[in-house]
């Protein structure tokens, strides 16, 4: 793979991949520019601590952890607010949680942190806050997001669905994530209960060459068609610095998937397994040609394939997928419990996410081997400045 692949998220974006190979201009720019929350952690040198010490700015007009290059470890922590958590209590809770997130993201212990040593290596930590419809109800406000309608493919379980408050905690290191999760759950305790926690992983930093798309537990390259550059800007962010987040737990029916030939697996998605190239192309980032016809007069890109069904014509309506793999303990027969914590950011769920999900629910061969077992939606409030708190624009 060549340096050109780095451009996927826009030339100006600092990515950790841009530094692994010591890539010329981008690497130098990264060292000079430090870290903003639109890029990723920027190691100063390829030493042992090069992924442990970098930080991603917490404060800003937009929250970090959205367009930030996805870190290797993620925890999605959803809370159910107590009945007596009113608007004033929400303000108290969010002041506490904002303060924790800001300190931990700087590599400093939180106030009253009983494990200060675990805060010292921030490893590019981001904490992103999401507000579910229930949070707005508690505040007696109208929610800007609504739960998704049901889809025929759904087998949703309450234990993986819904949530009034979400914390998306991501870092290059799982111990950092664990500590941040623990600290913030402690401070949220007076205001609500933990509804669910979905922990997931991606490739560790330094494992892949820069520019490589990650694979999911089904072995597929996952994320090729994500928006980048100027397209990303409008697809993800509303003018007021807000976004929305959909989190769906997608179980992989791996035992069934294992029985397929490579050709059958490729047919389900419309891409070659090894390269990720669409059937009409030769390399991963070739744009699929949905009009191409083969010798028998059939479309080369099968109309039932995942890529075909998920394809978005207008780039401004694309969604930013930022998923994490999960792999819990197998059962006694060794059957896996694994899949994808699907997370997508988009400016507008109805305009951008719903049409795609409807098309996939109607027809997508991949549905044979994946099952949505959890679903939730969150509004992503604007960022805050130092001294402020997440949600102040909504709740203050």
């Amino acid at each position, binding site marked *: 793979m060549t340096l050109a692949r780095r451009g996927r998220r826009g030339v100006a974006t600092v990515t950790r991949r841009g530094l692994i190979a010591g890539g010329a201009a981008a690497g130098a720019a990264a060292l000079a520019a430090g870290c903003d929350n639109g890029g990723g952690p920027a190691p100063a040198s390829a030493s042992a601590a090069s992924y442990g010490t970098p930080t991603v700015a917490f404060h800003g007009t937009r929250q970090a952890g959205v367009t930030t290059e996805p870190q290797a470890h993620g925890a999605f922590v959803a809370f159910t607010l107590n009945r007596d958590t009113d608007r004033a*209590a929400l*303000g*108290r*809770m969010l*002041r*506490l949680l*904002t*303060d924790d997130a*800001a300190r931990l993201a700087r590599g400093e212990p939180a*106030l*009253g942190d*009983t494990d200060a040593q675990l805060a010292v290596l921030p490893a590019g930590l981001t904490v992103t806050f999401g507000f579910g419809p229930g949070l707005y109800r508690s505040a007696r406000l109208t929610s800007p997001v609504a739960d998704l309608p049901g889809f025929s493919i759904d087998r949703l379980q309450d234990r993986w669905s819904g949530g009034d408050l979400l914390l998306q905690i991501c870092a290059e290191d799982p111990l950092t994530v664990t500590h941040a999760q623990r600290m913030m759950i*402690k*401070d949220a*305790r*007076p*205001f609500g209960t933990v509804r669910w926690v979905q922990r997931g992983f991606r490739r560790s930093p330094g494992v892949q060459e820069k520019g490589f798309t990650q694979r999911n537990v089904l072995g597929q390259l996952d994320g090729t068609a994500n928006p980048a550059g100027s397209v990303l800007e409008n697809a993800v962010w509303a003018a007021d610095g807000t976004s929305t987040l959909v989190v769906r737990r997608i179980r992989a029916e791996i035992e069934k998937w294992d029985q397929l030939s490579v050709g059958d697996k490729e047919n389900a998605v419309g891409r070659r397994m090894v390269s990720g190239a669409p059937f009409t192309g030769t390399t991963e980032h070739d744009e699929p040609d949905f009009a191409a016809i083969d010798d028998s007069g059939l479309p080369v890109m099968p109309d039932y394939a995942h890529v075909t069904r998920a394809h978005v014509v207008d780039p401004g309506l694309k969604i930013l997928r930022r998923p994490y793999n999960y792999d819990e303990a197998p059962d006694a027969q060794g059957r896996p419990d694994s899949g994808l914590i699907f997370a997508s950011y988009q400016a507008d769920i109805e305009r951008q996410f719903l049409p795609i999900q409807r098309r996939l629910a109607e027809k997508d061969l991949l549905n044979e081997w994946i099952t949505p077992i959890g679903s939730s939606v969150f509004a992503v409030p604007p960022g805050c400045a*130092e*001294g402020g*708190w997440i949600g102040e624009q909504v709740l203050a």
Partner: protein
Amino acid sequence: MPVFVSAAVAGVMALTGCSASSATSSDATVADAASPVSSAAAALTVRDPWVKAVDSGMTAAFGTLVNNTGAEVTVVSATSPASPMELHTMVMKDGQMVMQPKEGGFVVPAGGTHELSPGGDHLMLMEPSAAIKPGDELSFTLQLASGDPVTFTAIAKPFAGAGESYDPSMTMPSATASAAS
């Protein structure tokens, strides 16, 4: 979040902002701990303050006292609208850690710091007039030996750990017992 608040020259200021460059006085910028400061305004600052939330009964406030001058600074007393205050320390008596008022106040060395933390020196809220809820922001004023007041705001945290249950008759629990709480 109040993280680093300057002293006021005179009078009690209930500061709710957290900017280090407070607008309350001409000398309100926080000085580098190593350089002498001529004005008493920034002689002592309080870094990372917080209070332990409590429904009723006593509780404590913590933080780091930072001496920005070239001479020793002593905190002799504290006040707060939230509660009568005392300066407390933990001492070993008959093999156990007990809490008692700090004789001579908190002495902060020149250009140095003094920690107020669970299990150590702290500001005692002897009788809070109302529940201190997690996330509440409380105002405190420290009186220095020089007569100058230092005011800061601290957020209340639902802290559990380091054995701080505050009761004058209570001795310090063992480290292992407190870690489990």
